[in-house]
């Protein structure tokens, strides 16, 4: 039982502009539940993707049962007995359950026919053992999140894995579903399967894990044995610094008049009676689990999403139609969470990306660009935001994540916004750039801008927000001031629990 079955030795993985894993070594025993914890961006998923064959390390090696192995692809991982249940469903929606489960390894009868009955039977047997109720012939599109996850678990288990990776498996599950999952995980341990368990929920880890490995900023902090497990200890290892260190001190900030007012915002099935306001100089954080309506709400405010009821006003002027361009003119700006997909024009320079939302301000009535003024303004923003680049003509695709995010901020600051919406301000950027972005946001509020921030990073939400609104199923279920906020209260509200 005490034998190391899987070993990671000196794993380093670099992406352009960021080192995701830096010399990480850890080992997993046969038949143990080994939890992997750390903040967002600590490198947990990267490490698991290396084990799952999705990524290749730049340096270091993996050993299985003492033998060095190279895992070339997800199929290779599956064949080597590594099952991976992803955080986000990896299923093909228009195929049925059994087609997904057996994708790429269909059971075949003579004459090349697929053995539909045999495959369905295998799935049903597995479901029975696990306590799932799945119809193998049902299209995945008709399943809810929990059912989709059970499909993934069935797929992983049918490969008779020696190692099972579960990446945030409980994020979409209700309480009884969580209990069932825990039972399954414990049974697997009995059978000698090594379970790698990634989670943000420390209570779960205390309950389930045999050992815990903590990662931070791509480095190994340490591995705790069962008897050493302690929540506070894990938190301090994960954060590694006192919160005040990386977040600006906002105790002295004064708020001004109300800038943004949202009243009764309703989109059937997505948002229900959402009302709140943002004052000048204030940072309002929107928290909650993924997909509870926070993003829909800010997209509606930004004119990207129609709403059936409610009103939005900026500085007491109601925003009517006019779409995104109209919102920009009214002083609303939106920094997207998907920097590369819908933020930057990757084929273009810093200069052209920065001025994209402010073209109207930077051209004559006939539409001729005032390039001198453009250069001056972009130069000013680059200096203010400390964008590191050889010149403003450098392509944004060559910048690091942090500098790309600053170019996004530059674009929106050039529109001279009153209200700045920032969706995931520091997603995928290293710690240095994060601190500098927090500082920038702090300075913007001192200049009287109101900030509306969406983040899935709990520590960021708590560290930065003056006021936090927690979303659950399209409604704001909790409002917490800076003095009231704790991780636990946010988590409770986010999972629909009411406080006693």
């Amino acid at each position: 039982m005490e034998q190391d079955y899987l070993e990671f030795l000196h794993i380093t993985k670099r992406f352009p502009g960021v080192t995701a894993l830096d010399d990480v070594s850890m080992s997993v025993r046969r038949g143990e539940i080994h939890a992997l914890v750390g903040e967002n961006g600590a490198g947990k998923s990267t490490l698991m993707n290396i084990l799952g064959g999705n990524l290749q390390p730049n340096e270091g090696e993996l050993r299985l049962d003492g033998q060095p192995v190279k895992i070339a692809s997800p199929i290779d991982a599956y064949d080597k007995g590594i099952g991976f249940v992803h955080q986000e469903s990896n299923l093909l929606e228009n195929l049925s359950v059994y087609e997904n489960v057996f994708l790429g390894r269909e059971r075949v009868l003579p004459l090349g026919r697929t053995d539909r009955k045999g495959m369905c039977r295998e799935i049903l047997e597995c479901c029975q053992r696990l306590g799932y109720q799945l119809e193998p012939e049902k299209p995945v599109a008709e399943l809810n999140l929990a059912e989709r996850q059970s499909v993934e678990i069935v797929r992983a288990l049918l490969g008779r894995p020696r190692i099972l990776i579960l990446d945030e498996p409980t994020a979409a599950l209700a309480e009884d579903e969580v209990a069932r999952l825990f039972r399954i995980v414990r049974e697997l341990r009995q059978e000698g399967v090594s379970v790698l368990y990634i989670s943000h929920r420390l209570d779960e880890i205390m309950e389930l894990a045999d050992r815990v490995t903590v990662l931070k900023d791509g480095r190994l902090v340490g591995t705790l044995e069962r008897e050493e497990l302690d929540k506070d200890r894990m938190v301090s290892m994960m954060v590694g610094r006192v919160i005040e260190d990386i977040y600006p001190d906002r105790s002295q900030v004064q708020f001004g008049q109300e800038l943004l007012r949202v009243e009764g915002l309703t989109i059937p099935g997505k948002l229900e009676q959402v009302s709140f306001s943002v004052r000048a100089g204030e940072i309002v954080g929107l928290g909650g689990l993924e997909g509870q309506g926070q993003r829909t709400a800010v997209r509606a405010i930004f004119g990207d999403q129609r709403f059936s009821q409610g009103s939005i006003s900026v500085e007491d002027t109601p925003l009517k139609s006019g779409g995104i361009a109209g919102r920009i003119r009214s002083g609303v700006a939106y920094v997207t969470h998907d920097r590369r997909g819908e933020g930057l024009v990757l084929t273009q320079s810093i200069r052209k990306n920065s001025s994209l939302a402010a073209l109207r301000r930077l051209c004559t009535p006939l539409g001729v660009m005032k390039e001198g003024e453009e250069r001056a303004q972009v130069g000013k923003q680059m200096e203010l935001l400390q964008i590191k680049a050889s010149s403003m003509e450098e392509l944004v695709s060559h910048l690091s994540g942090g500098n790309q995010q600053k170019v996004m901020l530059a674009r929106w600051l050039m529109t001279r916004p009153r209200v700045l919406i920032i969706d995931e301000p520091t997603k995928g950027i290293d710690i240095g750039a994060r601190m500098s972005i927090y500082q920038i946001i702090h300075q913007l509020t001192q200049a009287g801008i109101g900030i509306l921030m969406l983040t899935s990073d709990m520590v960021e939400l708590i560290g930065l927000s003056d006021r936090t609104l927690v979303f659950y199923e399209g409604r704001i279920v909790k409002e917490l001031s800076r003095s009231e906020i704790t991780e636990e209260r946010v988590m409770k509200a986010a999972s629909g629990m009411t406080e006693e």
Partner: protein
Amino acid sequence: MSHNSLLNRSRGAASLQPLVLLAIIVVMIAAQAILVPGSLTVEQLLIISRQASALGIITLGQAAVILVGGIDLSVGATVMMVNIFCISAMQGSDANGPVGLLVCLLIGLGIGAVNAFGVLFLKIAPFVMTLCTTTICEGICYVYTQGSPTGSAAPFIRALGTGRLFGIPYSTLIWLALAAAMWAVLRFTALGRRLYAVGGSPRAARLSGIANVRVVAGAYIFCALMSTVAGLILTGYHNIASLTLAGDYSMNSLAAALIGGNAIEGGRGGVWGVVLGSFFMMLLMAILTMMGISQVGKLIIQGCIILAVVAAQQLWKKD
């Protein structure tokens, strides 16, 4: 530091592409002088430029569509329709000129608008949509002429196709003037910025407050209008209504735009590369003709040489 030099090289490659093409053209002209002694004159180059002007003007339009991430296969059909209806409306007389021009303008606007509508509102793939427009326009031309078009162009249209100013063909001048205008728009105006942004990342452009629909529709309509101008020039030059005159303009304009360094996925490219690309295509045809190579042989050699140029550019880019 090695990272930096890499940046500079990849940035340089894009702007170098037209220069590489220019060098290839110079080499080809030198080869012509050696292969067919005495054939290289200023007059001959002017004639090639006149022959290239129709393709060149169409390619400007095609380049605008490619820039916003689309493709327009209906440029040849637009030329055909303009040719047939221009001659039919003018009946060889200048007096009918305004009516004829109005008809051509409506044809251009109509085809561009239909393409834009299909692509933007019906969400049909540009390739399919413009292919449908092509088939419909060709069908209309066949039905209208019953397969045997007749008539000739009005004198002023003839002058447009064959006349010269200070020895330079009008059509060459129109081509270069349009190219210069398009270059100025792309280089100096907010509209130019929007075109590149929409082509580079439609979602980013939209979230920056750009009306993508207007920009893309504008590109298709501009392309159809360029084809209309080319159709008038060709009508004037050939002075006949013909169902075959439009030839392979759709494919050749695509080839010329891509040879000129415009990226098929949109968002990248310029005007002068496209101008050189069109000239290159016509020069190649002219040299092969001078060398007495048969029509079929010309097509094979043309295909091979275009392949070589594009492959060379790809290798250069990856270097």
